């Protein structure tokens, strides 16, 4: 407990159980310093800690017991690993003499979590606790952040030792970041100054290294259009004149199409995920590639870079800005705007301002963004609502978008929104969740109610697992195998938890319903009955080249 206080931990998400009881007992004495959020399931705790970490920039902490408590954390840990989210997960374990004996609620969580943690460690004596915790926090948040798991045997939790805590600032075998090499910066600046059609792609790395201002300064000096990955969203204000939109499978038309026209790609803090690149052998073939990245294992992993800049995005961008000449690319930028017009006419208009009967996800998102003055925190689940929300929500501030990107974890939305609300107490947090994902973790409505967290929950209900259904429609001849849902009365469920809400199914009631949700003091559930077979477009079909992006089926 003292170790956690040394790391300035003020919030823990967790769930007690037999083998973690001594820690919980100690927590009882520190209720003023550390707020413990009792979730309804350990998966809720870990996603809560992720939401908290993503909006606050702090390390999320979660606590669970041994066996099933620990295994229930795994999905969230895997999610945090692939989305570079700093977490310290502390699990209870059977007493050391019982290790390996199949004792009650024993699971080899250290073994199981190896592939999904940045580091993990089992503590079997009380003396090891301070150093293990110090190392855990240092590793979780430094360099490319990630989840760390500390497994505490019950006997280690009981022992009493004199408390000596030393923060860890270096580990011999671990280099969190390299100094940016000025030669590489010079080489990159040369390519940038020569480029005719440069495009900058930015990802989560900008937000993690707090490089938002440096990104802005760089693109404003060079005039280079900038497109974002799912996790880079909100690092650059939506209305910035050089923000040309979203990359990837359901991203915007311009940045996908023109990736294959660009003569220079400057990728910063992103890892060329397959959802971004689609068919790699036909990706950005006309372009030289500059890759700015803190994790050396990401360089040349998917796309071979002509210039690799290893290091922190903030420092690298600052150096690049100092080394490049002022420039502008009005003609090139106009090509993006032309694509925007085409996309708007063929896709967005119908999504955002539909005239046909049946509500669309797009209009719900548009209204929610407008009514919060583009300044809310958006938390999404996974699937169609996620893509639509990321496409149409608007942002002013960084750290305002929380979504499960790399792992695509359905059920992430509600608990992550709960954690985000705790991490950003003064802000409006809007959770956008589908009817499928909502039912995976809706037990956390209990946690939201108990802690009076004013999360605004929008459930987009089309009675389908919409994204899978869309793929079945497009690629499996409309054979809707196991995607139609028989749903409960979501509002009755919310009411059961003491949370107010309402259904809306008619366009004329939508604006008022969203307004009522936002005006309500406390958590609120708005269930929107949307068009059953609405699809998300544009789309880069799996295996296609990014420039083969389609605007309609």
């Amino acid at each position, binding site marked *: 407990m003292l170790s956690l206080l040394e790391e300035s931990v003020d919030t823990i998400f967790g769930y007690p159980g037999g083998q973690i009881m001594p820690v919980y007992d100690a927590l009882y004495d520190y209720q003023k310093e550390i707020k413990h959020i009792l979730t309804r399931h350990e998966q809720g705790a870990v996603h809560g800690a992720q939401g908290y970490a993503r909006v606050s920039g702090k390390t999320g902490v979660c606590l669970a017991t041994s066996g099933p408590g620990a295994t229930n954390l795994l999905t969230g840990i895997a999610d945090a690993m692939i989305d570079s989210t700093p977490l310290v997960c502390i699990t209870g374990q059977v007493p050391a003499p019982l290790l390996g004996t199949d004792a009650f609620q024993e699971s080899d969580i*250290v*073994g199981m979590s*190896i*592939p999904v943690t*940045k*580091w*993990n460690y*089992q503590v079997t004596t009380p003396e090891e606790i301070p150093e293990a915790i110090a190392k855990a926090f240092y*590793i979780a948040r430094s360099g490319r952040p990630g989840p760390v798991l500390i497994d505490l045997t019950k006997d280690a939790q009981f022992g009493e030792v004199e408390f000596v805590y030393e923060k860890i600032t*270096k*580990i*011999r*075998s*671990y*280099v*969190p*970041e390299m*100094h940016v090499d000025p030669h590489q910066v010079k080489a990159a600046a040369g390519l940038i100054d020569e480029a005719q059609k440069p495009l900058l792609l930015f990802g989560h790395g900008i937000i993690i290294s707090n490089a938002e201002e440096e990104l802005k300064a760089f693109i404003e000096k060079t005039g280079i259009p900038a497109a974002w990955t799912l996790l880079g969203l909100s690092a650059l204000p939506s209305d910035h004149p050089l923000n040309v939109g979203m990359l990837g499978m359901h991203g915007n038309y311009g940045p996908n199409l023109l990736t294959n026209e660009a003569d220079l790609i400057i990728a910063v803090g992103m890892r060329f995920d397959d959802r971004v690149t689609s068919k790699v052998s036909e990706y950005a073939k006309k372009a030289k590639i500059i890759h700015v990245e803190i*994790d*050396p*294992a990401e*360089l*040349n*992993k998917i796309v071979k870079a002509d210039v690799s800049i290893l290091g922190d995005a903030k420092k690298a961008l600052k150096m690049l800005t100092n080394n490049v000449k002022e420039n502008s690319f009005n003609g090139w930028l106009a090509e993006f705007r032309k694509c925007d017009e085409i996309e708007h006419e063929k896709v967005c208009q119908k999504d955002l301002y539909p005239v046909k009967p049946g509500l669309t996800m797009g209009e719900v998102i548009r209204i929610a963004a407008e009514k919060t003055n583009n300044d809310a925190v958006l938390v999404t689940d996974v699937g169609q609502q996620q893509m639509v929300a990321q496409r149409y929500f608007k942002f002013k501030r960084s750290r305002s978008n929380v979504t499960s990107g790399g792992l695509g974890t359905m059920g992430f939305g509600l608990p992550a929104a709960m954690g985000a609300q705790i991490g950003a107490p003064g802000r409006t947090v809007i959770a956008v969740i589908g009817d499928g994902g909502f039912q995976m973790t809706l037990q956390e409505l209990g946690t939201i109610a108990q802690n009076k967290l004013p999360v605004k929950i929008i459930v987009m209900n089309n009675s389908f697992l919409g994204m899978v259904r869309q793929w079945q429609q497009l690629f499996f001849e409309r054979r809707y195998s196991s995607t139609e849902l028989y749903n409960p009365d979501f509002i009755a469920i919310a009411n059961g938890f003491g949370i107010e809400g309402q259904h809306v199914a008619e366009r004329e009631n939508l604006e008022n319903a969203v307004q009522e949700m936002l005006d309500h003091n406390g958590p609120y559930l708005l269930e929107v009955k949307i068009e059953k077979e609405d699809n998300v477009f544009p789309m880069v079909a799996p295996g296609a080249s990014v420039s083969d992006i389609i605007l309609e089926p």
Partner: protein
Amino acid sequence: MKRDHIITIFSENNIGLLTRITIVFTRRKININSLTVSESAIKGVYKFTIVIRETDAQTQKVVAQLEKLIDVLKAFSHTAEEMIFQEIALYKVPIKPMYESNTIEKIVRKAGARILEITKEYVVIEKTGHKEDTQALFEELNKFRVMQFIRSGRVAITRDPVERLSEFLKERDAYLNSLD
């Protein structure tokens, strides 16, 4: 094109690291052909020698992911030509044919192998060399029915005049101190 690569990893001595290392290979479905681990010349630093058959590109990516592991100090990959390497093999053969003729003795002499132990029932022969050599000896001896056979993983050293690890550790220390 796939070819043999010898990956050497210098690491701290921490429980669970072997699993972390092998997972980097298994998740890419790469088979480990041989693996040896022992303490290096520097106390507390362990050296893994792993042989895989892979493309150069895939090997580079694996090495980068190995180096990313928190407890790994440094990882290198070499082709077989870039290293001097040996394996050791032990053969247990029945004693009877030894009494009956001098064929086994001739085989052992020719192969540059040596006899470690002789008992009433069997003789244990040792041979160091490359896999082709130890395998060839096995084929020869197996004419007399080898009772047991074991071959070690590969141990290898670079053709570099010095082990650069201690210099590396000094540089690493200086670098870490230079970080803010």
